[in-house]
């Protein structure tokens, strides 16, 4: 009797162990399959970067032979790009516009977002709906009269048409900040108000410190938006070579001097690098920012 039951138990245990093993093996295989797909996808996503960097380090002759590995490495390309075209100058222009755009956006967007989320007032939701609907408005509709305003002010060509609008609060930044401010509990504000805190103090000392991640996100988006912008500089800077940003400079690369065609990849790599470095350091802020609004940055 006992032996039979023992045997049966042993058989059962063996069976379940086998099942578990099978299960684990299945899971392992799935994991392998998932990672293989992901690695393949990563290769596709990274391939252009690989090609850009590799071509940027080749001699022109090599690049025209469609080589896939530089032989020899022409590190000098990265020096030459600064000598052949005013690359540093373009970088400085881009940096200047981007930094001021960022400052303008943060300074002008925080107060409206605060008022739209932390205070109750008549007309608040109507205002917010107007702000959101301006996000849908194609820029082409306002582009020409705005251009005419700046032309009348004699600001074209110049940086002002790119920078000044940033100081008038963008709809997207207000939206992102409002979404974040709204998640801060009311009790905090109410407590501060009872303690005699004015609205200004409340905004500066309580809400802004709590909303640092969101403010970082709009600062980043504003900076990168200006850094990557092409259309604005195309309208307002093209006529004066001294004002060119990297985006404009790159498109005019060939016409400028006699530069090897593959140096364009060197310039592109340098143009991308700061953005990618910034991204690596601020990934969390970035991804939270994108998810918070559900809209493109």
């Amino acid at each position, binding site marked *: 009797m006992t032996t039979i039951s023992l045997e049966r138990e042993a058989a059962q245990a063996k069976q379940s162990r086998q099942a578990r093993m099978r299960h684990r093996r299945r899971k392992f295989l799935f994991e392998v399959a998932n990672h293989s797909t992901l690695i393949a996808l990563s290769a596709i996503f990274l391939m252009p970067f690989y090609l850009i960097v590799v071509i940027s380090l080749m001699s022109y002759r090599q690049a025209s032979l469609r080589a896939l590995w530089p032989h020899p490495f022409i590190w000098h390309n990265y020096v030459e790009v600064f000598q052949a075209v005013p690359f540093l100058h373009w970088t400085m222009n881009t940096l200047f516009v981007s930094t001021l755009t960022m400052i303008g956006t943060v300074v002008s967007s925080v107060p409206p977002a605060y008022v739209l989320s932390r205070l109750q007032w008549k007309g608040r939701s109507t205002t917010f709906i107007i702000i959101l609907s301006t996000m849908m408005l194609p820029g082409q509709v*306002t582009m020409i009269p705005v251009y005419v305003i700046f032309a009348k002010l004699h600001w074209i060509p110049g940086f002002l048409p790119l920078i000044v609008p940033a100081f008038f609060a963008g709809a997207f930044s207000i939206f992102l900040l409002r979404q974040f401010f709204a998640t801060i509990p009311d009790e905090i504000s109410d407590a501060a108000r009872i303690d005699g805190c004015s609205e200004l103090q409340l905004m500066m000392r309580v809400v802004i410190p709590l909303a640092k991640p969101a403010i970082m996100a709009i600062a980043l988006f504003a900076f990168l938006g200006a850094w990557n912008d092409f259309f604005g500089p195309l309208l307002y800077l093209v006529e004066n070579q001294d004002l060119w940003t990297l985006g404009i400079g790159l498109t005019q690369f060939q016409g400028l001097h006699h530069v090897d065609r593959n140096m364009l990849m060197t310039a592109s790599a340098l143009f991308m690098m700061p953005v990618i470095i910034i991204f690596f350091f601020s990934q969390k802020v970035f991804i939270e920012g994108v998810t918070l609004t559900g809209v493109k940055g």
Partner: protein
Amino acid sequence: MQLSAVTKLAPSRKRGAGSTVPQNRKLKTPWVFIAICMSPWVLGFLFFTAYPMVTSFYQSFTKFNIVETPKWVGFDNYYRMFKQDPDFWKAMGNTFWISAISIPLRIAFALFTAWILTKPKHGSNIYRTLFFIPAMVPTVAATMSFTYIFNPAVGPINKFLEALGIKDPPMWFIDPRWSKWALIILGLWGIGDTMIIYLAGLLDVPKSLYEAAALEGANAWQQFRYVTLPLMTPVIFFSSVTGIIGSLQYFTQAYVAAGQVNDYSNSMYFYATHIYFEAFRAYEMGYASALAWVLLVITLICTLIMLRTQKRWVHYPNGTLFK
């Protein structure tokens, strides 16, 4: 446009007005403070949105070249657009073509990459970062690089394709039949931000639903089709609306690429390119304003159509947001 994708991610504040403040200390609305805080936006709205909109609407009925004062011409600009301007139809056709192909492709690809990112137990953060990086690259740099690496003479992409056994790989940007496909590939490369939004949506789907589906004997595909997909429809809806709006204004990639390869047949001539050329090359600013207003009307019509169809396919777990 408050969309469920948005409200779900950042729960909107439910506020019992000043509930924790004692009734006798009811706060007065600080109107001065509100006015000062709102002023940057209000002024910006007046100078850069409201006034320009009214002006450009007026100018769309005029002949205007920035130097002289606008001259009233009635509906001439609109007549010219539909009857006398073949470039308008070319641009319109190209824009609709690329929208019709690229929007569904982008959605499918973003959904697929986001979905596969939720699968592995470990390490998905690394892949997420890698997939996202291309979305960060400045549009001009990305476009210049793509026109180079897809160049049939000097670019390595066709070398790969030849190595894979494809005899006559496409000429990509140089060939009018393939140039828009090259632009679509460029767009798919930068799918990262859409993917992140989808990923957030996918991670929001309750695990219990999958477990329930598995108990009912649903396989992986059925789980995706009957659990994931319906719950993702609000996010998909949202990204299609923003996708359409963006796609109708498609400009930089096409402009830069066309400048690189001498696009003799205007295969990369889109609606926004047409507006730009009319306004700032031909200085036909009245006509360009009319084009811009037609763009606005098309955008509104597309959005309204989307809103109309959403009842049929968008599934809101907590009731509809659009009524």
